[in-house]
């Protein structure tokens, strides 16, 4: 369904004296589920708002299939940014629209809007009784459900979700990821999901984009990223010896034992001695190792 590649080149954005994006390069391929992760203030929301031409940028270029997205109707028709709605953002505007009017407004703008699907999602989330409730009167979780409904029913070839599971209970979060995968299986469109809750994303993100200090640290298939990391545990001498040829991201001493998070090629990691415990890391641990700058693992 997705037509071309969405590309950001040497993107810079600052708010006053604060540089948020610093020469960021990113390429989003069609037909893929991306996880966008980064620490608070890493520039995730700014990046998403710029990729969808909702925000201005200082330098660089954003193109879809080679064409600039800025003020480009054809490009904008293919992009949907379902931003996080928050009870704190009572700024008026569409936040004061009723749920049914909010979705009607969305149907005006998204050319592929799937109204029956939106109805089905409202029922599924138990929001069908809240149709006449103003969006800013909903609970945080319900606002997230409205955001998800908007994103999924938009059927936009590139759909961006900013913190879609914030405020959702664990059952609703599971259901969201199921719906996401079902939709992806059906339409093959591109999703970019920004989230801080990584434990529940196993098997969902095909590729992961890690943002750190305004730059893309990784834009890799999730499996191949995870293959590059191991938590090596054993006697300090043995671990020190085997880690000599690997990039050590963090170290933790526990008596005479040593645990290290290491990064290397799959071949090097496969060659680790069998007597050492070298377990794979999940995405959350990899992210902490890459962006925690040692501050979490070293203090666990």
């Amino acid at each position, binding site marked *: 369904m997705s037509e071309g590649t969405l590309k950001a080149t040497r993107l810079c954005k600052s708010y006053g004296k604060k540089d948020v994006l610093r020469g960021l390069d990113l390429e989003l391929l069609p037909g893929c589920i991306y996880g966008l992760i980064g620490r608070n203030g890493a520039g995730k929301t700014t990046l998403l708002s710029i990729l*969808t*031409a*909702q925000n*201005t*940028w200082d330098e660089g270029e954003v193109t879809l299939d080679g064409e600039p997205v*800025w*003020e*480009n*109707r054809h490009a*904008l*028709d293919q*992009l*949907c*940014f379902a*931003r996080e709605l928050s009870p704190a953002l009572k*700024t*008026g*505007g*569409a*936040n*004061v*629209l009723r749920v049914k*009017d909010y979705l*009607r*407004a*969305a149907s*005006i*703008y*998204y050319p592929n809007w799937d109204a029956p699907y939106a109805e089905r999602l409202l029922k599924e989330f138990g929001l069908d009784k809240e149709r006449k409730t103003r969006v800013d009167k909903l609970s945080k979780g319900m606002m997230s459900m409205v955001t998800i409904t908007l994103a999924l029913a938009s059927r*936009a070839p590139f759909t961006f979700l900013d913190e879609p599971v914030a405020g959702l209970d664990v059952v609703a979060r599971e259901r969201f990821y199921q719906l996401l995968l079902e939709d992806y299986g059906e339409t093959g469109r591109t999703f970019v999901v920004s989230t801080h809750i990584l434990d529940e994303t196993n098997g969902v993100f095909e590729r992961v984009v890690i943002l750190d200090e305004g730059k893309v640290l990784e834009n890799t298939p999730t499996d191949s990223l995870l293959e590059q990391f191991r938590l090596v545990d054993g006697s300090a001498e043995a671990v020190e010896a085997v880690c000599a040829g690997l990039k050590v991201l963090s170290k933790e001493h526990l008596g005479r034992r040593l645990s290290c998070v290491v990064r290397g090629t799959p071949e090097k990691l496969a060659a680790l001695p069998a007597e050492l415990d070298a377990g794979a890391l999940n995405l959350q641990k990899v992210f902490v190792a890459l962006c925690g700058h040692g501050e979490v693992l070293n203090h666990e």
Partner: protein
Amino acid sequence: MNKTLRYFGLCYLQAVGVLAAAGAGFAVGALLETRNSGPGLFSTYLTSIPFIVLLLSLIMPYTMSRNYAEEALCFGAARREIFRGLEAATLLYALAMLAAGKAGDWLAHRLLPPEELNFIDQFTGSLPLLFAVLLFLCQLGLVLGRAKHSWYLVAATIAVSMATLVFLIVALFLGYEEPSLALRQARPLLGTASLVLAAGMCFWFHSKVARMVVRR
């Protein structure tokens, strides 16, 4: 353009609906009051309708347009479309307000004796249309324009607000029921000059802000 007009139609419909219901209730109250016991509180306040409409026309686009424009942007509208669509929507809204003001004016003239009519003048009711558009343009520029241009638009908003006040005072002065002969003679000239000046400002801001809005 079409999408944005539909969107703003949806947004404004609620506000216009509430105002229309309130206006209709007010008018019915005034009619019943006059029929039963002669002109009273409702009827007297009819004379204030053009002034209330003027205030609403100034405030509503100022607050609502800005928020709705931001939301339209989030729904994936292009800035150019928002600008044009909202401009048209604001104009239609101001016209609706103008019609409401005129209706109140007409009803007041029907129900009240001449000595109770004050501050009612067609010119007073014409101003909202112009200044609603002016203020809207400045606000929208602030939302959609680049941050580096904000200083200019803030200054422009203040300048236009000040100009609005001046025109408002002129309009009320011109609308006063017992002006001096000199003022009566100068009315057409002052009225035309104010309108031309306001229209010129609208046009200038329109072209200036429109360029800013779409520039990245």
